[in-house]
């Protein structure tokens, strides 16, 4: 249920990024969310909708771009997308890997109506 506090953080950031009169023009808030960020997209959408109804962000929706879980192997140098949560190289099976992506939780951009 931390999606509710994430939704509040997202709204705070949007409010800091735009003048108040521009807020009703926001249509999309584009997010990048990694496979293992621990965020449930449905819960985030539900929370966001629940706390923006009848506010200046009433017309805004979340647009979620999923970022895959990706590892780089320090032994065979391959980059693979193994089945999460195994931290084992998808090529050679080594545990000597570094995470390249999958933990993202970022507000990428806003799409707003033009004047």
């Amino acid at each position: 249920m931390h999606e509710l506090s994430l939704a509040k953080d997202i709204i705070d950031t949007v409010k800091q990024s735009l003048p108040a009169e521009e807020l009703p023009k926001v249509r999309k808030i584009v997010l990048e969310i990694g496979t293992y960020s621990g965020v449930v997209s449905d819960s985030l959408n539900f929370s966001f909708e629940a706390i923006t109804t009848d506010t200046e962000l009433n017309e805004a929706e979340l647009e979620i771009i999923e970022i895959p879980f990706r590892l780089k192997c320090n032994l065979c140098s391959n980059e693979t997308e193994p089945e999460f949560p195994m931290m084992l190289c998808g090529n050679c099976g080594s545990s000597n890997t570094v995470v390249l992506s999958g933990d993202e939780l970022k507000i990428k951009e806003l799409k707003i109506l033009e004047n």
Partner: protein
Amino acid sequence: MEIIKIERKVLAKNDAIASENRKLFTDSGVFTVNMVSSPGSGKTSLVERIIQHFGGRLNISVIEGDVQTDLDAQRVGAYNVPVVQIITNGGCHLEANLVKDSLSALDLVKTDLLIIENVGNLVCPAGYDLGEDMKMVVISVTEGDDKPLKYPKMFMNSKVLVINKVDLLPYVNCNIAGLKENALKVNPDLVILETSCTSGAGINELCDFIEKSI
């Protein structure tokens, strides 16, 4: 549509406050452990055992996080260590600002080890940096050996795994070798220790690990 670039982490505010906390801990010479687990795996009992073990040799302060009640603060306070209770009123995890606000009640200069006992929850606390030096994830043998695979982020983000209640192993269907194997699949660098707060098994090893980490 006009595009306005933001490129900002959703948790940027929490992370910024966590960095302030971390700097404050470092400047004050405090080593901080963020203890996380499901409800009922024995975090508070471990805190009691750790305090007993060091017996005043280390100055320990404790922050207790719970959804309701100050029962844990009462338990820990009985050992005459400074303790602050954070009641989240429904919140499922601690955030860096809650920890920051509670620090005014503690004397950090007189603290060597700060233990933050997070809200019992194996999901949400994983994402929130509090400014700690390390996360310690606790699991009890009654919870089953598949939990690292089911709740991977907590195990990925922790430095040490404490398998607690090992005195119950003869009575529960827990494959402890499988539990360790699953934990290491998720985090190959995880340090794994076994404890029982009832028998006292493994408490010395846990406290040695903490002391060496400081």
